[in-house]
């Protein structure tokens, strides 16, 4: 019975995702106006689908199929074991330390707005940090660089307090909008760190030049620091100055990892299958390129 339900839901997921991710292909095929002839039809078909992006579309479709396959396998009872991610395991330790020291916990959700997926990923981690802080009765501060992020963070922290069974301890005054200006925001955060000396600092979201300023200030005040970003250029700074860092894809996997739900963990497994395919295609590509150059060198043409 459960397998049949899993089958049904898996099929539903597959059909939904096929509808969402391959809409462009369907439109490209269906939209070709059959009644119109010759060049007009070709022009219309061209307008419906950008053939220059066919390769990208195929790559997206294959990667999406892998992820959905991972979800389906998880629903059918397949293994969804995920390796331990130290940075996420450290959340409880960091918040616990802040509680013992009687100092606040600082959470920085990056400097981008809610239309950046890194900010959304950061907000999902905030949910877990806020729940732990509510359970331990620690003071959580969330200064934001965007008004919309402030609103989303307030909703998330409030939900976390409800989930922890302590709605009375929620205070929206601790989640504030500071400024959109990058270095104005950094100046505020640096000052706050030096004055309030938070015992734990979380940096989760999109960061640019400010990453090292924040991480070094946190290091100087002796805070335990956990960072997560998908900005490749900022990762070395966080690795150098923070205690734990979520590197790129780990940051996106955080939400699934923390939820512990089979569907979500299955998507990470699917993501890994996609990564294997990419690695295999790189190896095959390298081998083919090497063979071609050797053949050219020795064969002449």
């Amino acid at each position, binding site marked *: 019975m459960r397998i049949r339900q899993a089958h049904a839901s898996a099929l539903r997921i597959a059909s939904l995702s096929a509808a969402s991710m391959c809409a462009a*292909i369907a439109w490209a095929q269906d939209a070709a106006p059959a009644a119109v002839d010759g060049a007009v039809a070709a022009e219309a078909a*061209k307008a419906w689908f950008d053939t220059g992006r066919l390769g990208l579309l195929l790559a997206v479709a294959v990667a999406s199929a892998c992820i959905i396959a991972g979800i389906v396998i998880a629903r059918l009872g397949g293994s969804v074991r995920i390796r331990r991610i130290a940075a996420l395991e450290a959340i409880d330790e960091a918040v616990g330390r802040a509680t013992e020291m009687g100092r606040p916990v600082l959470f920085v959700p990056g400097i981008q707005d809610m239309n950046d997926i890194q900010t959304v990923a950061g907000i999902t981690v905030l949910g877990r940090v806020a729940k732990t802080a509510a359970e331990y009765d620690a003071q959580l501060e969330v200064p934001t660089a965007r008004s919309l992020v402030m609103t989303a963070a307030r909703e998330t922290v409030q939900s976390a307090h409800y989930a922890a069974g302590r709605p009375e301890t929620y205070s929206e005054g601790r989640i504030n909008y500071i400024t959109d200006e990058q270095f104005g925001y950094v100046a505020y955060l640096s000052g706050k760190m030096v004055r309030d000396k938070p015992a734990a600092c979380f940096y989760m979201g999109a960061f640019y030049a400010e990453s*090292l300023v924040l991480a070094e200030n946190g290091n100087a005040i002796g805070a335990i620091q956990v960072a997560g970003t998908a900005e490749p250029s900022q990762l070395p700074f966080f690795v150098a100055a923070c205690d734990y860092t979520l590197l790129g894809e780990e940051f996106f996997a955080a*939400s699934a990892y923390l939820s512990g739900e089979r569907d979500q963990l299955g998507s990470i497994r699917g993501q890994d299958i996609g*990564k294997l395919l990419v690695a295999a295609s790189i190896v095959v590509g390298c081998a083919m390129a090497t063979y071609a150059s050797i053949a050219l060198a020795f064969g002449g043409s």
Partner: protein
Amino acid sequence: MFKRGIPIAILSLTGTLLVAAHFSPMTQSWGEVVLNWFSVVAAITAILGAGNLLLVNLEKISSRRPGWAYSAITIAAFAAMLVFGFLKIGAVPNPQNPTVYFAGDYETRESAYGWMYEYVMSPLTATMFALLAFYVASAAFRAFRAKNIEANILLVTAFIILLARTYAAELLTGWVPKDSAFFFVRLDAMSTGVIEHVATAGMRAITIGIALGALATSLRFMLGIDKSYLPRS
């Protein structure tokens, strides 16, 4: 149901439209419309943000909490820029409509708004950015401590890159001919090799992982599997 179902429906719809707009020129305008929805929501919440800023700082001033003077400066600067911007004080007249005061450009240095930005905001921002050099130095000092094998490799690599960026590279290994078999011992060649092959390979691996992670996250949101960003019902 409505508190979670409607946001997921909106998210799936907008996600699908944006994916379609990327691949189909015909639907590009639909994607632009969806992005405009975001701008509208962001503009409304900007009022919330400004209100929150005022509230927090006014409360700090009225209760004379430590650092209240900084809040007073923040409120004064906020009000001044608001007045300068809205009233376009000192705005340069628009050549096409010189008689219409509000048609003037307020972002040039001649206007009060532009002057404040150019001579107050920009230097302050540059000052904060310049501090980065010292933070880089202190982070490098800690990261390059040769305490284990990995740190030793990092230290040696950093040393090669650092030397290759200076005249020392020319002085130390510049005498090795570029067409010799020992070209690889030149510091500039080693530096190029590290950046183009080792660092690029590592960075590409991270970037591919990020792309797949972003796709998986988007799919989880669009399919309503991950609802952690939504308020609990």
